[in-house]
């Protein structure tokens, strides 16, 4: 069975002039949110994953450590 990764719906991201932002939050306000300033590569990964991709495909395009790190942070999750 192919292991897939996807971006949870509550994770938002966008490019900024220098790198990008990843925002992790549900519900009202923003003070309880987590937000990370990230590199262009992370934004590239998130755009590539879109609604879900095979993990090995993402790892081949970028790298296994990058994917692992994003899964660890909850920015990507297993499954579609």
């Amino acid at each position: 069975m192919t292991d897939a990764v996807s971006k949870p719906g509550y994770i938002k991201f966008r490019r900024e002039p220098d790198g990008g932002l990843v925002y992790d939050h549900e519900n009202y306000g923003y003070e309880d949110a987590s937000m990370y300033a990230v590199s262009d590569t992370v934004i590239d990964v998130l755009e590539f994953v879109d609604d879900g991709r095979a993990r090995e495909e993402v790892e081949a395009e970028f790298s296994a450590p990058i994917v692992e790190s994003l899964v660890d942070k909850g920015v990507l999750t297993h499954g579609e």
Partner: protein
Amino acid sequence: MESEPYSAPVTITWEVTLGCNLHCDHCLSGSGPGKQRPNELTTEEAKAFIAELDEMDVFQVNIGGGEPFVRPDMLELLEELTARNISTCVSTNGTQLDEATLDRVEAMDPLFLQVSMDGLRTENDAIRGEGVYDQVVDALERLEDRDIGTTVNTVVTRGNVYDLPEIYDLAEAHGAGLRLNRFRPSGRGEDAWDEFRLEEEQIRYLHEWLEDKPDVRTGDSFFYLNALGEVRNNTLKQCGAGSLTCLVDPVGDVFPCAFTQWDHLASGNVREDGFQVAWDEIASLRSQIDDHEGCPAVAMGSSDPNGEDPQLRAILSGD
């Protein structure tokens, strides 16, 4: 705080109307029955604004008022936001959530509701009106039945601070989270400031209670620190007014946050200038906000408008 402003806010608060069926004593925006402004954004103007938010990649929109659901087009606007996958959060007094409204709300994603409850029955109804507490509890039951993501929002006051454990239990019993907001001297809260603001002993009680409740959501820099003045956790509990967030009022004027709606901090209008222009301008106001430690709105609304947030100082100094 970032040295370079972001291209767009991370999140905004959009007060869609000053109309409300309630007339709460501490209302931050001074809303109430008949308080709608004659030139509030029309449906078409509001939709154009939403399109610009989408274009600018704003992650999250917090809808407030007034009571948002007294706007006849509110559901239409929420559908417009969620269809664009903008995280949409609505702060409501909970009295307008009939079944037909909930049918449409239930179908929207990502959408979250925040229902106001400012105490148990006696305290809540003294502030928000007779019978409102029971209506809110009824709404919480119906929201739970439909599994609609809900948070109970409590503005912590002198009268309800010791009821927080029971409010927490009540929210939890309905599958809802609890979010605390600080009472601030804004709107009618300016007149009620001395009546409702926490005393120092209560500030310490509140922060100690929060230590045991890491799942309670909190707003503003006041909650960034614990009772010992230590950073509680690694989230965005800093003041983001004008840097991460801003406020758009019912006629489209843009301010750093909901509690700093003062003329000298206005930075443009979404209808006349477009939101991007207003956001770009707001960076120049940021220095006026940065001058205040803690919540600038509390500092600027207190007896020394150029000073720091006196309640935060109470935590830091322990006096």
